[in-house]
């Protein structure tokens, strides 16, 4: 008893204070994946069965909804291309540093920490996929947390709402900076040390400020739910609700920030473009490409994108996409005119890639884009 107690205490101290056990731990983590997979099996089986018996009408309704959503998002994306371009130019005028584009990798949740007092999840991407310690994790609606433990094929993510987690944020409306700490409640964050007179009110969107150099700037974190001014307290009590669905999201995005300079990125993009052109010229005999290209701008953008994934970007090709710049959605006339890009003579479509980005458009994206591309003009 005594020996084992001393042994466990020593182990705990070593594990907490030094890094010597980390590699061993991460190797042992290999065993852990099949465990969580097995534990999750009944849930998966149930989901599979319910999918099988899902009625056709439900699926059709879902399909309709997704189509409508995709249409809306496409429309926003067209505006985004011009806005991004405008933003880059304005920033150049102001001589401030350029916006950094990020690449992302899609991960899937495979387990939740069984301890109800810690908010940690297990995801199916690990060191082999390029995941690193402290990497920010997003879902479709906002920041979720950061990677705290990397194992070969899995990693652990500490969520924003864990009591040990804090994130620097700023109010989107006026840039007021604050620190949002987790409370242990999955629906609540608290802003620490906000002065009573600070301009912050209910409904304000908090975005990550990028200070602290861990999270990328500008992603939504939470919306302010209530601001309590208590004259007995030195600071205002500000409570916020995370925008990300922390306890519901199954798919999440791991962000790799791209810290090349804009010139480098432009060069890389140009090179990738040239290579793609060469490839396309070689393949022109094949009819498949020429038949898809004239339909809209997007398929053409995807083709060089697929070529660029090998050269421009360090991480995986298939699962990556750029949130800020899916440039190709060309139907908006302003978007294509604004870009001083090297056009692709081989396919004959003008203005396919933005020079500042060099990262590939998601290969899956063009397919849905082909159908709604005729509709957006009616939307405007």
């Amino acid at each position, binding site marked *: 008893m005594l020996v*084992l107690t001393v042994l466990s205490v*020593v182990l*705990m101290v070593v594990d907490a204070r030094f890094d010597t056990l980390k590699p061993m731990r991460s190797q042992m983590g290999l065993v852990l994946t099949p465990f969580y997979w097995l534990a*999750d099996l009944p849930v998966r089986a149930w989901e599979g069965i319910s999918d099988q018996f899902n009625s056709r009408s439900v699926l059709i309704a879902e399909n309709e909804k997704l189509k409508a959503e995709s249409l809306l998002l496409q429309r926003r994306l067209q505006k985004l291309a011009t806005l991004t371009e405008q933003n880059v130019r304005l920033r150049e005028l102001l001589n401030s540093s350029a916006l950094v584009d990020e690449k992302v990798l899609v991960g899937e949740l495979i387990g939740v920490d069984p301890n109800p007092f810690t908010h940690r999840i297990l995801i199916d991407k690990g060191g082999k996929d390029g995941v690193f310690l402290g990497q920010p994790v997003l879902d479709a609606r906002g920041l979720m947390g950061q990677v705290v433990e990397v194992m070969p094929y899995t990693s652990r993510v500490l969520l924003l709402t864990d009591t040990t987690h804090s994130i620097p944020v700023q109010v989107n409306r006026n840039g007021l900076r604050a620190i949002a700490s987790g409370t242990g409640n999955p629906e609540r964050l608290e802003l620490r040390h906000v002065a009573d007179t600070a301009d912050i009110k209910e409904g304000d969107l908090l975005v990550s400020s990028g200070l602290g150099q861990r999270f990328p700037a500008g992603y939504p974190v939470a919306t302010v739910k209530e601001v309590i001014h208590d004259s007995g307290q030195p600071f205002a009590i500000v409570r916020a609700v995370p925008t990300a669905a922390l306890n519901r999201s199954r798919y999440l995005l791991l962000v790799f920030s791209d810290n090349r300079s804009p010139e480098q990125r432009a060069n890389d993009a140009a090179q990738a473009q040239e290579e793609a052109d060469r490839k396309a010229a070689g393949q022109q005999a094949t009819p498949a490409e020429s038949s898809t290209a004239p339909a809209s701008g997007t398929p053409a953008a995807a083709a060089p994108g697929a070529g660029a994934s090998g050269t421009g970007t360090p991480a995986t090709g298939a699962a990556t996409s750029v949130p800020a710049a899916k440039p190709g959605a060309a139907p908006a006339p302003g978007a294509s005119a604004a870009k001083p890009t090297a056009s692709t003579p081989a396919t004959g479509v003008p203005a396919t890639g933005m020079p500042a980005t060099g990262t590939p458009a998601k290969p899956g994206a063009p397919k849905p884009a082909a159908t709604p591309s005729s509709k957006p003009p009616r939307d405007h």
Partner: protein
Amino acid sequence: MVGLRPRNGWVIWFTLVLALLLSVAPLPSFMEIGRPLWPALFLAYWVLALPHRIGMTGAWLLGLAEDVLYGSLLGQNALVLTLITFLVLALHQRLRLFPIWQQCLVLMVVFGIAQLVQLWLNALTGNRPPTLVFLLPALISALLWPWIFAVLRSLRLRLNVN
């Protein structure tokens, strides 16, 4: 108990692995707060029934496995499970004679102590649960004890584990 040769030891380890699986199985969040201490329950039965087969070293190893699985500090659950085994071993002559509901009461105290130690260790590493509900798993585990006891006992007798 004629020959004390170890027999069918795999059953013990199989049930312990099953306990580990149960301890990470997904639960709805309102139930998660009262998740029974499966490894502790299964371990307590085997220690009580076959103290010569599974002792504190076994418990320690199981605890280490649990630590790796949970991603907690290495040695944290190992210490807790060793403590439970120690208490059960110290009491096992008496516990065996108790009626089942009395066993439940004693085990509730044992698990409660274990949860307290767990709380202290968690507090040292900085995440302290804000309320007293961390004691709920001890209560629920104690309530589950009669069923665990019956199932494992029948398993032991049927497979003649020794």
